């Protein structure tokens, strides 16, 4: 099927690429179907979470472990049940990025990662109880300090 997207124009997807979010996302409860599109053909930490039904609705996802190597959390039983997770291997974790200008001000929402069961095609934005994770973490903080700017 063909869908219209926020960043890539018209895109051809197959039904089995659709990830179902039974409860939508916080703030977007009626949006239940998304596809994950890699940002570029080259290896990239960025992906796009595109709504299937609303062309203008898309989120920029990041690979959390690229930006925050120590990022970790445990999924509650209710989440593993909802996502029908049998093994860690079928799970993908993304963080939603809020792109700001300049790009150095871009933040990641570590409080509410997007967790997806790749085999089953179901996902959920999980709200973590960990207090050290907030909705806005600068993704460039470490890079900036390493370069001594």
């Amino acid at each position: 099927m063909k869908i219209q997207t926020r960043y890539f124009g018209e895109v051809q997807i197959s039904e089995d690429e659709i990830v179902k979010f039974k409860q939508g996302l916080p703030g977007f409860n009626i949006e239940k179907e998304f596809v994950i599109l890699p940002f570029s053909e080259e290896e990239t930490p960025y992906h796009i979470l595109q709504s299937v039904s609303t062309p203008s609705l898309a989120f920029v996802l990041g690979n959390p472990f690229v930006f925050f190597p120590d990022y970790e959390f445990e999924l509650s039983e209710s989440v593993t049940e909802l996502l029908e997770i049998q093994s860690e291997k079928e799970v993908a974790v993304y963080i939603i990025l809020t792109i700001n200008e300049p790009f150095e001000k871009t933040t990641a929402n570590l409080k509410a990662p997007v967790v997806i069961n790749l085999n089953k095609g179901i996902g959920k934005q999980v709200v973590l109880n960990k207090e050290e994770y907030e909705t806005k973490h600068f993704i460039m903080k470490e890079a900036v300090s390493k370069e001594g700017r």
Partner: protein
Amino acid sequence: MLVLTRKPNESIQIGEDIEIKVLSIDGDQIKLGIDAPRHVDIHRKEIYTAIQQENNSASQSPINLFETLNIVKKS
């Protein structure tokens, strides 16, 4: 909004399977116990609101993302 007065150890039943119990009161802190089915998500309101707001901001990321991210790649 429905307003009910409860004392410690008294509960409110919502529907068939949700119970909210006042466990203790200490000054302006009230400890609540919540029994609900697993599929019901329970969050502190301000955290859920913060995530809704962040999702809203994130969905407004600039449409010229390619330029933005490509600049990052080159630098």
